[in-house]
């Protein structure tokens, strides 16, 4: 009896901590979203108030949709994020499989080399990257961004996935070899489904910095046709005047696609944990 009460108290305490953390984490998002629905005067008068009938105003959204080609910016962001994510997961998983599965000379060194990128920020190489993109004529293309983000995401992907792939039963892979499956079939059909939770983790960690990045779009692809959402929203931030309605509306809109992607991956993550019944 006392034990039952004790565990209730504990779970209450745990929930209190978690709820507090959630509130703190979601507060800025909440403020951004409520203010995006208010008129300019209401934003400055009382930033924490929820929109009322009086202060409710969609001017921010109207501005965003009227000025600039926001639909195109969204599309660019989505293309860059999804393409980079695809390549990071594909190449990261393949490299991780090779590192964890095959014994070859320099295996350890190769693993360290591939993980090195976690410690060195890719932005240090911005000038060299820009020179390279200019030389290869890739400036102002989405390809440039996809290439850079793939390189940026690979180290962490290789590091996490190779750890997980070491945990996949050797017997299972060997059974596949004896049954005549090719190494590619073993990789795609046996190993990948079993490391799905790790793939989802890597996907989430890779996706968010790419979606939010301002640096590389600004330097490598600032043209109107290749602007991403984060770069597109900058037009509303001026040196002297900032159109806060439009900025907040753009930011609120930018949350949506990445939220959808996150939900997709977190479902995968949960499904991966209940493996065995997975088709």
């Amino acid at each position, binding site marked *: 009896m006392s034990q039952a009460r004790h565990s209730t108290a504990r779970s209450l305490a745990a929930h209190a901590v978690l709820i507090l953390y959630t509130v703190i984490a979601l507060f800025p998002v909440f403020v951004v979203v409520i203010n995006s629905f208010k008129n300019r005067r209401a934003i400055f008068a009382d930033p924490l108030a929820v929109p009322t009938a009086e202060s409710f105003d969609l001017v921010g959204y109207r501005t965003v949709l009227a000025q600039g080609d926001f639909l195109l910016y969204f599309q660019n962001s989505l293309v860059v994020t999804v393409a980079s994510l695809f390549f990071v997961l594909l190449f990261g998983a393949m490299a991780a499989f090779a590192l964890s599965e095959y014994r070859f000379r320099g295996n350890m060194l190769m693993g360290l080399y591939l993980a090195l990128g976690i410690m060195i920020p890719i932005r240090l190489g911005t000038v060299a990257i820009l020179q390279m993109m200019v030389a290869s004529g890739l400036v102002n293309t989405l390809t440039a961004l996809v290439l850079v983000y793939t390189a940026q995401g690979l180290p962490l992907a290789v590091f996490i996935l190779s750890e997980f792939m070491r945990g996949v039963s050797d017997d299972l892979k*060997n059974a596949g070899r*004896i049954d005549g499956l090719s190494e590619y079939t073993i990789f795609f059909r046996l190993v990948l489904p*079993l490391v799905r939770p790790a793939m989802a983790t890597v996907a989430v960690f890779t996706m968010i910095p790419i979606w939010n990045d301002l640096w590389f779009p600004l330097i490598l692809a600032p043209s109107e046709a290749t602007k991403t959402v984060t770069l597109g929203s900058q037009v509303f931030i001026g040196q002297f005047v900032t159109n806060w309605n439009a900025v907040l509306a753009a930011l609120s809109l930018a949350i949506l696609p990445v939220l959808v992607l996150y939900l997709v991956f977190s479902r995968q993550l949960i499904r991966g944990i209940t493996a*065995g*019944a997975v088709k």
Partner: protein
Amino acid sequence: MGALTLTQVTKSFGTTQVIKGVDLAVEDGEFCVFVGPSGCGKSTLLRMIAGLEDVTSGDVAIDGARVNDLAPARREIAMVFQSYALYPHLTVRDNMGLALKQAGTPRAQIEAATGKAAEMLALAHLLERRPAELSGGQRQRVAIGRAIVRRPKLFLFDEPLSNLDAALRVQTRIEIARLHRELGATMIYVTHDQVEAMTLADKIVVLRGGVVEQVGRPMDLYNDPDNTFVAGFIGSPQMNFLDAGKLGLRSARLGIRPEHLVPGGGQIGGRVSHVEKLGGETLVYVASEDHGLLTVRLFGEQDYAVDEVVGLGFEPNRAFHFDAEGRRLR
């Protein structure tokens, strides 16, 4: 079909040699068991036969054809793993049929082969389930079924019973013996459990440190071991090793099986240190000043008190003589 020959096979990982020149001939239809303590190289040797590990030097031949450089799938072997290694995303039927499907066998033939194997192993009602929905014993039967379906020249078993509980282990052991009789196929079986080795094998290969210590039929190893390692490894409880010098014999050590030590003799004195009653037999542990702890195996229920002083005797022709290096003196 299905004879296996190993000629001076070695395996090195980096600078460590784990298999140090093994010669072995397994005849067609034979049940051969590799047994030894962990780390003796028995699993590595099996994986080399399967083609999952490269052979550093020497030859592996199946039916007289050298297979060193052949991929595992093309060696016409099948393997059953300790962890079952079933494909989690496939049903029992597809698990068993995958190898044939990969080889391009017609669907009807796959159906027939899977059906027959399922019937042999009483799996027919489980064919549509996935591995996650099966118990440990059922999973191991599916793994065995997957091997049977391929009609291989050689069956390889890598400690297949180690993950099962005691009752299931005995049952599956009998099932494997029955399969061997029915299929008449050559089987290579790796285990660290000498009981499995004794009960299943036509031929036992005792390995230690990458070297074959002795090869022979179970009863030959039991009744005629070549050295103290084989004598101690085969038979449970373990053979007693006595200091032969203290008994006035010329050999260095004397090996006597627990069932051949009889109370009441005067050659060895000691005190009972522990008694285990198993119902059908009684194990009496006797601490002797000259020879250390000795095990005596007695038939039926016997009453001994701890600390009781006992004298033990043995028949000289039941004892094995070994020299100082552990080699048998005949």
